[in-house]
């Protein structure tokens, strides 16, 4: 955590339990980081929530879409990028948002040429609803994007630099000398994430397009009969899901160093969030992601750093084990 841990202090001639103060400070900072990072995770999970939760397409390449979002934002705002003129304060966040449409296009193309062949109308009613094909194809896409990313972007860890990443708002001292530090970059990223999430929610809930997307996802056959172009609706929804995750990636790029293989750590986090939040619900995916981010940050209090990632996998396993399929998937198949 940022900030210096308070040295042993004596106030009013009375020795305070310093360890307790340190603990309080650590806990409060972990909570603050948990909430800010959690909101960004929430946005990231919404992307997968659309694709996996609502459209029921298993996408292993979602982590790579996140990675593409990070690199899109990087190339937009640094060096000779188009948005470089915006400077290091606003640029990274505008860049993150602009990564959305770019990856949206990429996602829509992926869907048009590859994923549509193993999902949607072509596979409704087949034995496994096309999941086998989706698993294999998206794993293939994921391998290509990771390793292709290695070829194109190189293996050096990158960050979208902003001076805000090393500045923090200080709240407190709250208890004794315990102070809460709110990293400015993360706080702004968190705010952007919430705004984007709300905008997407309004789009899906209140526009014609949103209704068509939800109808197509819910029952492609019925939607076809109602005159909805299901293929197109799926393509748009897949693109939006890709773009949203990419925006989250762009936001994370401001405080995280990343490389072409960053996706795998996050794909598990995304599935945890979507499953935890209850399949098929956009808001649920957000809350699920928020919870997972929160748990991850709080695990920093008790676990050594190498094991935090392992902890995420354990949490993920627990989530899918403990929530029986009936709660989020189809209930028992009809015999």
């Amino acid at each position, binding site marked *: 955590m940022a900030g210096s841990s308070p040295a042993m202090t004596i106030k009013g001639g009375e020795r305070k339990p310093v360890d307790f103060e340190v603990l309080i400070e650590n806990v409060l900072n972990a909570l603050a980081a948990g909430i800010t990072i959690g909101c960004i995770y929430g946005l990231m999970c919404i992307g997968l929530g659309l694709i996996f939760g609502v459209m029921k397409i298993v996408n292993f390449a979602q982590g790579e879409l996140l990675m593409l979002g990070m690199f899109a934002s990087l190339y937009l705002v640094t060096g000779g990028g188009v948005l470089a003129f915006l400077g290091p304060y606003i640029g990274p966040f505008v860049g993150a948002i602009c990564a959305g449409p770019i990856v949206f296009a990429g996602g829509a193309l992926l869907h048009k040429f*590859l994923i549509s062949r193993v999902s949607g109308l072509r596979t409704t009613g087949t034995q496994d609803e096309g999941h086998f094909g989706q698993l294999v194809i998206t794993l293939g896409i994921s391998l290509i994007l990771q390793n292709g990313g290695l070829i194109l972007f190189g293996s050096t860890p990158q960050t979208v630099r902003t001076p805000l990443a090393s500045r923090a708002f200080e709240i407190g001292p709250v208890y004794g000398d315990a102070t809460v530090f709110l990293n400015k970059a993360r706080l702004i990223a968190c705010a952007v994430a919430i705004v984007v999430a709300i905008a997407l929610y309004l789009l899906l809930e209140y526009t014609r397009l949103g209704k068509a997307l939800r109808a197509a996802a819910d029952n492609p056959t019925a939607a076809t009969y109602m005159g909805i172009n299901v293929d197109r609706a799926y393509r748009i929804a897949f693109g939006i899901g890709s773009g949203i995750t990419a925006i989250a990636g762009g936001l994370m790029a401001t405080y995280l160093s990343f490389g072409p293989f960053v996706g795998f750590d996050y794909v598990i986090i995304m599935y945890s969030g979507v499953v935890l939040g209850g399949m098929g619900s956009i808001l649920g995916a957000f809350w699920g992601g928020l919870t997972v981010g929160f748990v991850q940050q709080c695990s920093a209090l008790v676990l050594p750093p190498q094991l935090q990632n392992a902890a995420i996998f354990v949490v993920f396993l627990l989530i899918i084990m403990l929530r029986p399929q009936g709660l989020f998937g189809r209930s028992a198949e009809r015999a």
Partner: protein
Amino acid sequence: MRQGASVRLRRDLIALAVIATAYLGASAFVSNSYYQLILTMVPIWAVFGVSWNILSGYGGQLSFGHASFFGIGAYTVTLALVYWDLTPWLGIPLGMLAGAVAAVLIGLPTFRLRGHYFALAMLAYPLAILYVMQYLGFQEMSLPMHRAHPVAYLAFTDPHWYTVTAVGLLIAGTLACMLVENSRFGLALLAIRQNELAAEAAGLNSRLWKMRALIVSGMIAAAAGGLYACVLLVVTPDSVFGMLVSAQAVVVTLFGGVAAVWGPIIGAAILVPLAESLNAELGNYLPGIQGVVYGAAMIIIMLAAPEGLYWTLRDRWFRRALPPPAPLAAATPAPRVAGVHSGGPLLEVVGLSRSFGGLRAVSEVSFAVTEGEILGIIGPNGAGKTTLFNVLNGVLTADDGSATLAGESMLGRKVHQVCRMGVARTFQVVRSFPRLPLLDNVIVGAYGAGLPDHTAVDAAVGALARVGLHRQAGTLAGQLTNKQLRLMELARGLAGRPRLLLLDETLAGLGRDECDEVLDVLARLRDDGMTVVIIEHTMHAMMRIADRFLVLDHGRVLASGLPRDVVENRSVIEAYLGKKWLARQNA
């Protein structure tokens, strides 16, 4: 052994011997150590593919985390050599043991999940182990050299011997896979892959078979990993637990052919040299080229030949009619199991209830079926007929009430356990194993009842003869007509020599003539003394076959008794045709 196994085994063994000899002969002439390394890696990755194929190909349980077992094998061999000075000749079996233990530990919780949830969960294990290994400080382990005893420590100076060892491992792995494929193990896995509920209802304990498959698979994968460590002499968490390792197994098998002994071998023989040579030529400029090739291979194969090269080629050039099963001529009706039970009802249901939320789908249903009787259950849509069957055969649990078969409770048992009690069942929508021949579909039922191999084939052939399908025994179930499928399900039930048949709308979707044929079969079964409970919509068919009727409406028993009495019962007419119709009739 399965039907036709001896022919297939002999052919495959000859092919294996020829290929192995040719491969070793060719490899003896390769002096470049890099090419020799590629020749060593092909069989190792092929063995890894074979292990994946057993669980995910035959069993259909898609695993994207097979690196768990590979890595456990590699690390067991390495750590045992480093800390205990244990030779890999013993380290590899120890690794296989560790792989088996890991398989049990991973399988116990994970087999509660199905489909893509299973695949996702499997993905998480190796990644979690990877981080733990890093945390424990096993970042990069080198295998100590034992120049004094190269053979005793599997540390050859001539790399050709590694290839020989790897081919030996491949032969062992392939033999194991052939044994699986040609025994009831393989048939059980194929059945589970194609329709798990049907396999359960035919008496197969699918959890147990899947667990066995994972253990065998984990052991083979661990052996491959162990040898890999010996060949490369250095292991890192990423090189044995990494995602690319899991992908290797998936890719070589998918590419070569799913659920085929030769699949992983074909896949590895093509893809491993391709990826390696690309890596060697272009690796400096394009560091991820191997992953890109594998990714592209997965996508292309999925779109162009989803079952893999082996099946595509075979269907294209080697399509032959399946040989007709031999013992069909001597089809004698199966001997009837002597009724150990006399007097009193065979099936007795008392106060059975089952709710879904607020809906009482089955509500305090009571009835009894005596031996040799055909009970027809009728009622409008949503009356709870299928739910009643689902509760009786263990698909659903009962909320309340009891159900006994010859005095023994049927409730609280799993689907396959109910089947083992002697209760066979068919489904409203036929559940076949479409890619298996008709005879194998029926043999699954005989295996499910625990019959030994020879008796099972006889029982299946007898059951096919009883329903009049013995001429189609070699046809794939996916090519049968609806009527034949209905009869197949009936035969699958009969093959287990049940005491009670539960038939769920066996006549649904049949034309009048077809209907008559099926009814004739049922009549013959009754003459043989079979006890049957049948759900049916069409009244006229039921009038011909049923001894007694039970009418359900909104989950309750509306009426029961002799067919004549029931069809004249006012409340039954009302339930079927509505109050208005009844009022007009009376007016």
